[in-house]
C-alpha cells in the first residue's frame, strides 16, 4: 500500500483501499466484526428485540389488571412478569439502545473513523447478548427473577427466594453491566482523545458533551450496583450475611447500593435522549442551539445533583429528618438544570422558523409527557407527599411519564432523524403521523389513569384487587390505552420497515444539518471519512455539503491507508491539537471467544458448579492477554506522516494514548466499587441490628507488616520500572514476588476470617475487603508477568513504554487497595470497641 503522500488517487480508488482494510467480510467473519457501525447497529437492533419482549410483558400486566380479581395469571407468574418487564426495559433496552446509538454516531460526530477500543465494543455487545439471553431463557423456563426489578432484600434473599430466580437476575445483570462499563470507558476516551483536529472542548457538538457527562455518570454509577449484586450473590451462595439482620446485616444496605446506581440511572437514560433533542431541534428550528454553554453547565450540575438524591426512594424506611432534608433539597434542585435545558429548547424554537416534520412531532410528545413527569417528580421529592404516595400506582405513573417522556419519545425523534443516515433513504411518512398519535394518546390514557388509581390507594405490584376497591374502571381504561399504544408501536415498526424498503434515496444531508455525520456517504462506509476533517468552528455549525466532497477527495488528514493499518488521529484533550496517530487492532474473533468464556464463568456460578468458575476465569484472562499482540511493535517507529506537512508519533510512543486513559478510568470505576464496599461496611456498623458482633479480630501485626512492606515495594518497583525501561526485568520480577507475597498473606487471612465471615456482618465485611485486595494483587501479578514477557520479546524500549506505564497505574492502585484492606479490620475493631464501650 502506498504512503499517503504524492499523487492523489481518485475517491473510488481511495474508497476501495479503505474498505479493504476497514471492512468486515460476510459469512462467519461477521462474528469477528469490531467496526463501530456494525456493533452500534447490533446493539440497537438487539435492544429493540428486548423492547418488544418488555412490551409484550407489559401487555400481560395490563391484561391482568384490566378487571378486578382476574384469573389470567397467578401471583407467582405475575411477579415474574412485572419483574422481567422492569428489568428488560431498564437493563436490556434503554441503556444498550443509547449505547448502540452513541457507538454508531459518536465517531461520525467527532470526525473520526471508529471508537477508541473497537474490540471492547464487540466484547461488550456479546456480553450484553449472552447476559440478556440468560434472563429471557429463565423467563421461558419459568424461573425468571420475581422480586421486582430492584430486587429488594430480604425478599430476594435465600430465605424468601430459595430458587434460582434471584441468582438469574444478580448474575445475568452483572454480566450485562460489563458491557455498560466498557461502553462508558470507550465513550469517554473516544470523546476526549479521538476528535477531529482543531475540535477543542468549546467546539464539540452538543451531543458529545451529553455523552461525556452520561458516560462519566455510568462510570461511577454502575459499580455500586455491581458490588451490591456480588454481595447479595455471595450471601445467597456462601452465607455471608450482608443483608441478614439476624446476623449483623441490614436489608437497607441493598437499598442504598441499588439506588446509588438507580437514581443516577434515570438521568443516564434521559440525558442521551436530551442530547438527541439538542442536536435535532436546532436543525428543524433553523437556528443554532440557544444557550450552548449554560446547557453544558446544567449537564454538569445535573450529574452531580443526581448522585445526591438516591435516598428519595427510601423516604419511608426510617431515616432521620435532617438527612431526609438533604436528599429532598437535592431532589427538588435537580429540576433546575432540567428546566434550563427545556427553556433553552423553547428559546431555540422561538428564535427560529420551525419545520414540523415527524421528528419534531415526537419532540412535542416529549415536551408534553416529560414536563408532567418532572412535575410529579417534584411532588414526590417532597417528603410528606411521598409518604402518602409511596409504593402506589402514582409512582408507577410518574416513572413512566419520566422514562417514556424522557427517553422513548426523543428516541423515536432520533430514529426518524438518523434512520436516513443508517439506511440511505428518507421516510415515506404515510404512517408516521398516525403512529405518533396512537402512541401519544395511548400512552397518556394508560398512565394518566395510574395517577388516579395511585391517589386512590392502589399499591403497585399487586396481582389482583377487590371489585369494591373503586379502581376497576380506571384500570380498564388504562388497559385499553395500553393496547392503543401497542398498536401505535406496531405501526412505527411497520413504518421503519417501509422506510428501509420503499424510502426515497437522497444525495446528502437531507435535513440540512450542520454536524459532521452528514459529511459522508450514506449508508456510511466502514471507515466513515476518506480523510479526517479539521474543524475551525463549533462542530454543529458546519457545512457538510461542502466538507463531504472535500474529505472524500482526500483533502483532510490520513487520506490513505498505510501498510494495511487502521489509523486515526488522537488530539490533545483541551485544545484539539493533533497529538499522535492511533493504530487500531484489526477484525478478530477474540471478543466473541472472550465473551463466551466470560459467559461460562457466570453460568458456572449460576448452576453452582464452583470448581469450573476459576478455570473459566483463567481462560478469560488468557484470552484477554491474546488481545495484546495486534498493535505491538518490536522497533521504534519514526513519526508518521498524516498529511498537510505534519508527522506524529504512533500511539505506543505517545505519553498519554487512549489505553492509558482507559486504565485510569477503569481504576476510577474500580475505586468507586471499593469505596462503596467500605461505605457498606461502615453503614452496617452504624445501622444494622445485632451489633456489636460476639467476635471480631484485627489482623496479626507481623504478617500485616510484611504484606504492607511487600505492597509498598510493589508500587515502587512498578513506578521505577518505567524510569529504567527497558532494563526493568529485575524490578518487575521483584514486583511480581512482592505481590505474590501479599496475595499469599491475604489468602491466609481469608482462611482465618472465614468462620467470622459466616457468623456476622462485621466478619463478612472484613472478608470481602481482603478478598477485594487479593483479587487486585493477583491481577498485579499477571500484569507484572506480562511486563516481563513484553520486555523479553523486545516490545519495550525507551520510546515504547505503554505496557509498563499501564502496569505502573495498576501497581500503585492495587498497593493502595491492599494497604487499605490491611488497615480496615483495625478500624472496624476500634469502632466496634468504641460502640461497645
Amino acid at each position, binding site marked *: 500500500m502506498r504512503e499517503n503522500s504524492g499523487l492523489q488517487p481518485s475517491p473510488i480508488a481511495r474508497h476501495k483501499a479503505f474498505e479493504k482494510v476497514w471492512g468486515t467480510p460476510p459469512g462467519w467473519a461477521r462474528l469477528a466484526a469490531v467496526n463501530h457501525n456494525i456493533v452500534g447497529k447490533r446493539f440497537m437492533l438487539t435492544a429493540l428485540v428486548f423492547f418488544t419482549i418488555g412490551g409484550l410483558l407489559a401487555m400481560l400486566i395490563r391484561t391482568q389488571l384490566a378487571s378486578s380479581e382476574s384469573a389470567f395469571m397467578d401471583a407467582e407468574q405475575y411477579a415474574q412478569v412485572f419483574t422481567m418487564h422492569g428489568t428488560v426495559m431498564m437493563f436490556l433496552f434503554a441503556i444498550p439502545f443509547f449505547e448502540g446509538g452513541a457507538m454508531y454516531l459518536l465517531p461520525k460526530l467527532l470526525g473520526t473513523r471508529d471508537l477508541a477500543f473497537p474490540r471492547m465494543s464487540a466484547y461488550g455487545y456479546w456480553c450484553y447478548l449472552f447476559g440478556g439471553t440468560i434472563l429471557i431463557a429463565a423467563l421461558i423456563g419459568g424461573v425468571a427473577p420475581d422480586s421486582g426489578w430492584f430486587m429488594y432484600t430480604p425478599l430476594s434473599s435465600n430465605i424468601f427466594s430459595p430458587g434460582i430466580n434471584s441468582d438469574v437476575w444478580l448474575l445475568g445483570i452483572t454480566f450485562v453491566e460489563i458491557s455498560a462499563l466498557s461502553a462508558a470507558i470507550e465513550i469517554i476516551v473516544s470523546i476526549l482523545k479521538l476528535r477531529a483536529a482543531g475540535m*477543542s*472542548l*468549546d*467546539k464539540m457538538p452538543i451531543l458529545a458533551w451529553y455523552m461525556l457527562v452520561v458516560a462519566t455518570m455510568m462510570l461511577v454509577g454502575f459499580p455500586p450496583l455491581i458490588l451490591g449484586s456480588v454481595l447479595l450473590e455471595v450471601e445467597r451462595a456462601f452465607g455471608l450475611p450482608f443483608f441478614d439482620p439476624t446476623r449483623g446485616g441490614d436489608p437497607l444496605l441493598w437499598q442504598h447500593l441499588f439506588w446509588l446506581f438507580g437514581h443516577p440511572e434515570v438521568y443516564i437514560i434521559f440525558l442521551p435522549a436530551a442530547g438527541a433533542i439538542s442536536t435535532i431541534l436546532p436543525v428543524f428550528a433553523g437556528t443554532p442551539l440557544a444557550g450552548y*454553554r*449554560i446547557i*453544558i*453547565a*446544567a449537564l*454538569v*450540575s445535573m*450529574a*452531580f*445533583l443526581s*448522585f*445526591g438524591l438516591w435516598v428519595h426512594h427510601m423516604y419511608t424506611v*426510617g*431515616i*432521620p*429528618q*435532617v*438527612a431526609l*432534608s*438533604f436528599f429532598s*433539597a*437535592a431532589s427538588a*434542585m435537580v429540576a*433546575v*438544570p432540567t428546566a434550563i435545558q427545556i427553556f433553552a429548547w423553547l428559546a431555540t424554537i422561538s428564535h427560529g422558523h420551525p419545520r414540523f416534520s415527524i421528528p419534531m412531532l415526537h419532540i412535542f410528545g416529549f415536551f408534553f409527557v416529560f414536563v408532567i413527569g418532572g412535575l410529579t417528580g417534584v411532588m414526590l421529592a417532597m417528603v410528606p407527599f411521598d409518604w402518602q404516595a409511596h409504593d402506589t400506582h402514582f409512582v408507577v405513573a410518574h416513572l413512566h411519564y419520566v422514562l417514556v417522556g424522557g427517553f422513548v419519545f426523543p428516541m423515536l425523534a432520533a430514529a426518524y432523524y438518523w434512520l436516513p443516515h443508517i439506511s440511505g433513504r428518507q421516510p415515506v411518512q404515510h404512517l408516521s403521523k398516525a403512529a405518533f398519535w396512537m402512541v401519544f394518546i395511548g400512552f397518556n390514557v394508560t398512565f394518566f389513569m395510574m395517577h388516579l388509581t395511585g391517589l386512590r390507594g392502589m399499591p403497585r405490584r399487586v396481582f389482583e384487587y377487590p371489585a369494591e376497591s373503586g379502581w376497576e374502571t380506571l384500570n380498564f381504561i388504562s388497559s385499553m390505552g395500553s393496547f392503543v399504544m401497542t398498536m401505535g408501536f406496531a405501526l412505527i415498526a411497520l413504518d421503519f420497515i417501509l422506510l428501509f424498503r420503499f424510502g426515497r434515496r437522497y444525495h446528502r444531508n437531507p435535513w440540512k444539518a450542520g454536524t459532521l455525520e452528514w459529511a459522508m456517504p450514506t449508508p456510511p462506509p466502514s471507515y466513515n471519512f476518506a480523510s479526517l476533517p479539521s474543524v475551525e468552528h463549533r462542530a454543529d455549525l458546519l457545512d457538510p455539503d461542502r466538507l463531504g466532497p472535500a474529505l472524500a477527495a482526500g483533502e483532510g488528514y490520513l487520506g490513505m491507508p498505510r501498510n494495511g493499518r487502521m489509523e486515526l488521529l488522537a488530539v490533545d*484533550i*483541551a*485544545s484539539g491539537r493533533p497529538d499522535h496517530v492511533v493504530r487500531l487492532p484489526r477484525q478478530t474473533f477474540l471478543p466473541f471467544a472472550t465473551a463466551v468464556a466470560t459467559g461460562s464463568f457466570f453460568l458456572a456460578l449460576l448452576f453452582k458448579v464452583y470448581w469450573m468458575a476459576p478455570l473459566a476465569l483463567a481462560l478469560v484472562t488468557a484470552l484477554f492477554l491474546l488481545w495484546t499482540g495486534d498493535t505491538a511493535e518490536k522497533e521504534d517507529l519514526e513519526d508518521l506522516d498524516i498529511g498537510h506537512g505534519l508527522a506524529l508519533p504512533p500511539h505506543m510512543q505517545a505519553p498519554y494514548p487512549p489505553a492509558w486513559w482507559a486504565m485510569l478510568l477503569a481504576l476510577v470505576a474500580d475505586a468507586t466499587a471499593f469505596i462503596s464496599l467500605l461505605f457498606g461496611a*461502615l453503614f452496617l*456498623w*452504624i*445501622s444494622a441490628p445485632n451489633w456489636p458482633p460476639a467476635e471480631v479480630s484485627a489482623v496479626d501485626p507481623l504478617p500485616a507488616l510484611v504484606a504492607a512492606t511487600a505492597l509498598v515495594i510493589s508500587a515502587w518497583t512498578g513506578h521505577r520500572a518505567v524510569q529504567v525501561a527497558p532494563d526493568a526485568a529485575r524490578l518487575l520480577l521483584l514486583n511480581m514476588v512482592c505481590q505474590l507475597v501479599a496475595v499469599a498473606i491475604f489468602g491466609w487471612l481469608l482462611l482465618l476470617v472465614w468462620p467470622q465471615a459466616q457468623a456476622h456482618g462485621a466478619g463478612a465485611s472484613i472478608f470481602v475487603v481482603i478478598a477485594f485486595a487479593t483479587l487486585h494483587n493477583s491481577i498485579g501479578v499477571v500484569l507484572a508477568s506480562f511486563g516481563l514477557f513484553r520486555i523479553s520479546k523486545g516490545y519495550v524500549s525507551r520510546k515504547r513504554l505503554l505496557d509498563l506505564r499501564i502496569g505502573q497505574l495498576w501497581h500503585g492502585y492495587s498497593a493502595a487497595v491492599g494497604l487499605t484492606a490491611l488497615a480496615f479490620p483495625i478500624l472496624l475493631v476500634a469502632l466496634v470497641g*468504641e*460502640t461497645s464501650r
Partner: protein
Amino acid sequence: MKAPPLLSIMAGFALWSVLFLLLYGVQAAGCHLAGGEAAAMAGPYPALRWTLVVLAALGTSAVMLLSWKKRTTRPDPSKVDDLTDFTREVSRYVWLGAAVATPFTFIGVISLTLCGT
C-alpha cells in the same frame, strides 16, 4: 497554575458533593455514637447539632467565596482565547449553581430532628 478545563468546570459541584458526603456521614456516625436507636428519643445533642451547623456554614462560605472569586477574577484579555473564555463562563455558571445549592441543601441542620424520624 491553571486547572485543566474539565476540572475547572466540575470544581463547584465537586465541592458540594464532598460537603454532602461529609455532613451525611457526620450526622449518621454522630447519631450512632450518641446511642443509635435510643438517641432518637433522648435529646437534642447540641454538640452534634453545632458540629453540623459549623460544617454547613464553613462549607457554604467556602463555596460562596470561591464562586464570587470566579465571577470577579478577570484574566489578561490578551491571553483569553475561545477555550479559556468558554471554560470561564461554564465554570462560572456551575459555581453559581453550587453557591445556591449548598445553603439550600444543608439549611435543615439548623432545626430539623437530628436522629429521629
